């Protein structure tokens, strides 16, 4: 078959000219269990210092929805040597930026600043890992701030983030995967100072964390600083993670919601995915790119361009919360679309099933497979561009797999995926019985 030979030669040529990225990784552990990752990068005169704690909103205490996120705010309220808001003051006075966020399986705190200021960031992160100091007054203040955050990002917005907040609640059965991650206002307002202190003691221990330093620094210069600030923080006994496994779904789930603030209908749906470590996972990642990775993808072309039902199409793995690698537990492959008045979510799902059936029956083309690998590599490099992006991936790989050097083996693991594996993944996972869909329509005005 001559055309196959041509395709093969082209593929070889493309691989031969492909530039690879090699991320330097130094990885070790302090005696108190703190994992430390250092990675040099000298393109910009900047550094990111990030601490990732192995506690996300997925496993926050039952009955206290939103607590992990409320707690994240408390980490900016002061520690033994740094008063409330002084953390931000110091970072900014040194020319840097800072933030924190709560995700499914970790809570992170980071600052990116000129690289000659790396020691300031290490001092600040160590001080709050060692000695959080919170008061009733500061807790009340942050309960108000977080309640406003929930109003601002959820309650006062059309669609109210239904594509993850509501989808996870409806798609899952295990409470840990199926509760309101942002939190009910009632629960947020009920939190007590004792809960905050206990949560800190339980989860914010060096042996439940990764410190990552990425940027324009020499490892041999920063190691003594890490030693100086972190080594005598005492370890704690961190509880076992609860069972977060999700029972297999056996029937399709359909939910209808009405929206007081939206003007147009929207649909979100998700399929349960195999474990990240399973042999199917790389195939699923590439399958996602082929069906909804860009404007050339099968779902975008079908729903937005051919059928003219959808206005937009978005989606992915760990959608709106992270990427394919920075989580640890059950996961959904999500799609979200805003569609035109006069159509229905049912119509869209019928088209989605037709697209899935086509892949299940006929597989994907050689060109689609080749392009998906290029697309994967290009997207992966986007994650490595900034010192923070790199720190995020290194921290997740250290936290969840104890192996940050995986960062250099990911691209090659995806180069070997075959069309057959993708077809078989479509047969296993893109099934209505494995899917939950929420159709959200404007309330009649």
């Amino acid at each position, binding site marked *: 078959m001559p055309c196959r030979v041509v395709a093969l030669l082209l593929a070889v040529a493309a691989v031969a*000219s*492909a*530039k*690879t*990225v090699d991320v330097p990784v130094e990885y070790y552990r302090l005696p108190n269990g703190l994992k430390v990752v250092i990675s040099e*990068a000298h*393109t*910009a*005169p*900047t550094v990111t210092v990030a601490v990732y704690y192995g506690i996300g909103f997925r496993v926050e205490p039952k009955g206290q929805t939103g607590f992990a996120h409320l707690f994240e705010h408390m980490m900016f309220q002061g520690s033994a040597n740094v008063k409330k*808001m002084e953390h*931000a*003051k110091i*970072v*900014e*006075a*040194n*020319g*840097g*930026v800072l933030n924190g966020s709560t995700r499914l399986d970790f809570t992170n705190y980071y600052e*990116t*600043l*000129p690289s*000659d200021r790396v020691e*300031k960031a290490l001092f600040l992160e160590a001080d709050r890992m060692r000695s959080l100091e919170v008061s009733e007054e500061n807790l009340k*203040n*942050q309960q108000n*701030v977080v309640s*406003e955050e929930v*109003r*601002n*990002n959820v309650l*006062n*917005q*059309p669609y109210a983030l239904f594509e993850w907040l509501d989808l996870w609640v409806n798609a899952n059965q295990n409470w840990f995967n199926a509760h309101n991650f942002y939190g009910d206002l009632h629960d947020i307002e009920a939190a007590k100072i004792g809960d905050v202190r206990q949560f800190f003691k339980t989860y914010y221990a060096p042996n439940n964390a990764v410190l990552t330093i990425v940027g324009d620094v020499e490892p041999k210069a920063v190691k003594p600083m890490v030693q100086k600030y972190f080594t005598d923080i005492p370890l704690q006994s961190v509880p076992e993670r609860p069972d977060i496994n999700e029972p297999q779904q056996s029937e399709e789930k359909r939910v209808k919601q009405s929206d*007081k*603030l939206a*003007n*147009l209908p929207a649909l979100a749906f998700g399929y349960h995915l195999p474990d990240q470590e399973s042999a199917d996972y790389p195939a699923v990642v590439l399958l996602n790119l082929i069906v909804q*990775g*860009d*404007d*050339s993808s099968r779902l975008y072309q079908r729903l937005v*361009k051919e059928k*003219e039902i959808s*206005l937009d199409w978005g989606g992915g793995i760990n959608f709106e919360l992270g990427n394919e690698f920075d989580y640890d537990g059950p996961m959904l492959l999500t799609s979200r679309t805003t569609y035109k*008045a006069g159509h229905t979510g049912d119509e869209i799902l019928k088209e989605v099933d037709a697209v899935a059936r086509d892949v299940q029956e006929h597989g994907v083309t050689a*060109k689609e497979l*080749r*392009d998906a690998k*290029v*697309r994967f590599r*290009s997207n992966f*490099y*986007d994650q*490595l*561009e*900034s*010192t*923070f992006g790199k720190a995020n991936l290194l921290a997740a790989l250290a936290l969840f797999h104890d192996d940050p050097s995986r960062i250099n083996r990911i691209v090659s693991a995806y180069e070997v995926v075959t069309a057959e594996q993708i077809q078989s993944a479509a047969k296993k996972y893109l099934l209505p019985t494995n899917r939950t869909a929420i159709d959200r329509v404007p309330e009649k005005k």
Partner: protein
Amino acid sequence: MLIAAFLAAAIHWPTITEKKLENGLTVVLVPLPNVPKVTAQLTFLAGRGTGYREHPGMAQLAGRVLTEGTTSRTSKQLKEELRSIGGSMNVTVDDDATTITANALSEFSPKLLALLDDVAEHPAYPKSEVDLAKTNFAQEIEEQRSQPDFVANEQFEKAMFGRHPYGFVVPEPSAIAGITREGLKQFAASHYAPNNAHLIVVGDLQPEAMLEEVHKALGAWKRGTAPPLESPPLPRREKRQIYFVDRPGSVQSTIVMGAAAPPRKSPDYIPLRTANMILGGSFYSRLMLNIRENKGYTYSPFSVADLRRRAGTFWTSASVRNEVTGPTILEMLYELDRMRVLPVTKEELDSAKTYSIGTLALEMESQAGFANRINTIYTYQLPRNFLVTFDEKVNALKPDDIQKSAATYFDTYRGAIVIVGDYTKVKDQIAPFGDVTLIKR
């Protein structure tokens, strides 16, 4: 001392190579090899308000359909070719310009430039794509108008700029039907010309080799005759006016308040940018300390020195629960006036200087982010040495310069306050601050 004053070492910026092609295209090349990719931005000086009185939405639609087919490629072919190089291409149309931003793996940069040229030089405006884009654009406007931030910003622009092109944000959906394929093609032919454009390429590149590639891809594109940018006089506001956009059922009031500011190229930009960092342009800012960390009224109050090519605004914003709408406006006005009446402390100013300089250097962490920064030099007519002289200009500022800047540009007595919220629930809290115009949708 934990708080350090200035950055120790001068920032080492990448070398910027600029060249004008014979067809008038300004080409700017910046090596930033953090990953093996490149980002290209091709910018035309055609803002969203271009010709809006006759054809509102024309500039936006013309930009939007650029990537939906050329004389030799269908939309789908174009998107598949982009996919094969790990690339993407998006068009944005803002107040001053239409920009095509494209990126790809650097090993495929010749192909990326060829696609960019094809889209810019030979857009086809296929009838089916124009029809679909018109329908979808109208629906998207309906969707945008359900978002409180969008509504507040749209109203603020109208209030500040009136009939100046900057006062136009989106057309009424019903007006889009009147735009024709012929009109779009004409718009493209006159505005998307190389001598009305600049091309910025940032990333994993060698300037000489890249210039060669650019020349090959875009060198044969013919000059055009773009009409000059329209810049009618700006409306002058004599007193404060409140615009209340009613959004029944809203659980928060979204507040935007501000006043007129100069164009970006004005020497007032750097003092104003620095004043902004102290007021609400950073995490440890006065607004954040007061209305978030002290009072707990809001999640993320902020302020922006929003300076563009022909004019600007200075504005500050917060979304707050209904019951504290009045108290929040009171505090925002207080913080604005405080900076106009009293000097900032030396500590605040030193911190703002370091923050301002340090965060400019952080923009080198991203090819797209740095391309945006370089683009401001060309779109806003800034001096070519903007980056290398920035720290010197910032470090020369005194508390008095900040106070003068605030006194001039934080003037809410001749500004506008926009509130998007539930009118019946909060109207009594608004009344003390000025005359209210109620807008119902």
